């Protein structure tokens, strides 16, 4: 077992996968916690799917898929943030942004025919195909996002939990929502390298959603979310090495079973309470 492990770790692509997975897992779990508090699941889902347009467009403009996805998601994130700073209004703004972006993506697809081969990698992730250059980009982007949260998370938590009060305390709802959407766009782009754009939910909302079901404080929720995210990514990647089944499959499996267990335990423990 340990021998096998050493053997796998001697490969660069396994190490790269673990590094990219770790960074995306941490960022996804942290940002996901705010997604859950803000009930912004639809925004996360939409930003990930919008990445598809970026990936198809990137091929046309000689960019890497990661760069293309990042640019389009960040732009779309700003648009969603600017137009929908209140929950009630945001669903429409998000849906519209998603539609126009996917429409453009469709157009890109007709121009660029050699794309089909990449499609599976983009839709379902290709963690073992992460290049050295992508690792550096991932590192920079995670540091940037986590750094912003280090400065901004206190305000973000307040404005997410109590928007009316936060507004009265001089916090701009639309500015907060734009900043958060950009961070969210970065984290779904990074997560989509690991699990693909269709399954971003698994890394960005899964761990945080599970944690928020039973963690009673902000910090315990955040720590649990990160722990779940990291365990799922690491175990998923290693299981993929042992079984040759896709890492994405294992990661979704792990998160889903943790979710089932949490639901069962919560229902039992919080009966009536």
């Amino acid at each position: 077992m340990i021998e096998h492990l050493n053997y796998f770790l001697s490969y660069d692509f396994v190490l790269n996968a673990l590094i990219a997975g770790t960074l995306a897992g941490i960022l996804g779990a942290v940002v996901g916690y705010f997604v859950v508090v803000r009930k912004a699941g639809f925004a996360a889902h939409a930003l990930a799917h919008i990445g598809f347009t970026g990936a198809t467009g990137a091929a046309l403009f000689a960019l890497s898929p990661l760069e293309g996805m990042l640019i389009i998601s960040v732009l779309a994130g700003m648009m969603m943030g600017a137009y929908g700073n209140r929950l009630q209004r945001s669903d429409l703004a998000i849906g519209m942004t998603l539609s126009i972006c996917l429409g453009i993506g469709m157009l890109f697809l007709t121009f660029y025919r050699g794309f089909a081969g990449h499609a599976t990698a983009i839709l379902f992730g290709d963690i073992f195909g992460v290049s050295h250059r992508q690792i550096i980009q991932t590192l920079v982007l995670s540091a940037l996002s986590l750094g912003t949260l280090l400065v901004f998370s206190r305000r973000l938590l307040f404005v997410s939990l109590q928007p009316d009060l936060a507004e009265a305390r001089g916090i701009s709802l639309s500015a907060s929502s734009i900043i958060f959407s950009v961070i969210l766009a970065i984290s779904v782009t990074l997560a989509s390298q690991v699990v693909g754009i269709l399954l971003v939910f698994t890394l960005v909302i899964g761990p945080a959603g599970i944690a928020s079901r039973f963690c009673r404080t902000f910090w315990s929720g955040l720590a649990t979310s990160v722990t779940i995210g990291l365990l799922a990514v690491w175990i998923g990647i290693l299981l993929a090495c042992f079984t040759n089944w896709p890492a994405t499959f294992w990661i979704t499996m792990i998160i889903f079973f943790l979710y089932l267990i949490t639901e069962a335990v919560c229902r039992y423990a919080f009966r009536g309470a």
Partner: protein
Amino acid sequence: MTSAISITNGGVRLGGRDILQGVNAEIATGEFIGLFGPNGAGKSTLMRCILGLTPLSSGSISVFGEAPGRANGVIGYMPQSRTSLEGSALTVRALVSAVEGGNRWGIPWNSRAARGEVERALELAGAGEYANRRFSVLSGGEKQRIALAQALLGKPRLLILDEPLASLDPRNQMRMVENVARIKATTGATILFIAHDVNPLIKVMDRVIYIAGGGAAIGSPDEIISSAALSKLYGAEINVVRAEGKIFIVAAEGNVTEAAHHD
């Protein structure tokens, strides 16, 4: 006595419609003001104007001698919308802690002093005993006290409470009112208390603002809650009936506009 809020000829226009016009009010520090009026009259809107969140279209407001919004650091606000946090296990204490100093930069970590402030506010709002419970499972009345606790953070000099009695049973309405009256007595804060029924507040309020028909009238409870004053404000005949120690406000046609029918 210095002035806490001063509104001169204030008017508000929203969505192409005049909501309020010609509002004049001079509120002294330490006053307990009851603010009444039918649904959609503009009570919450007037509060947003005082907080500087909605601009006046005419006239002016000053709050503690400053432009609205400038003094918000010393205003405690209990908005009409309530949090639910459904499905989340966050405790009452965790929620209130996130609000304390929530407009500062950095990470959500509270100093010992800030944690003490959270406990003080919870105690003052009568919510000390369920600080450790999950917020999402509290009853409506219990959640209301948490909203009050959040408004009390930072020792505000002005408390703006937007319908703190909504969905409370008569007993808990009394407790909420007594609680706010006690807070006023111990902290000396000015209170703006929005409600639909005048009866629970009749013993504690110093003056009344009544908003209806786009205008506002301010004065002593006896002055404003009278057939003459309300008829003028509504532009229709209104009767104020006192029976069994309670006040009923009845439109002449017989339908009750605002009365003690919240239980």
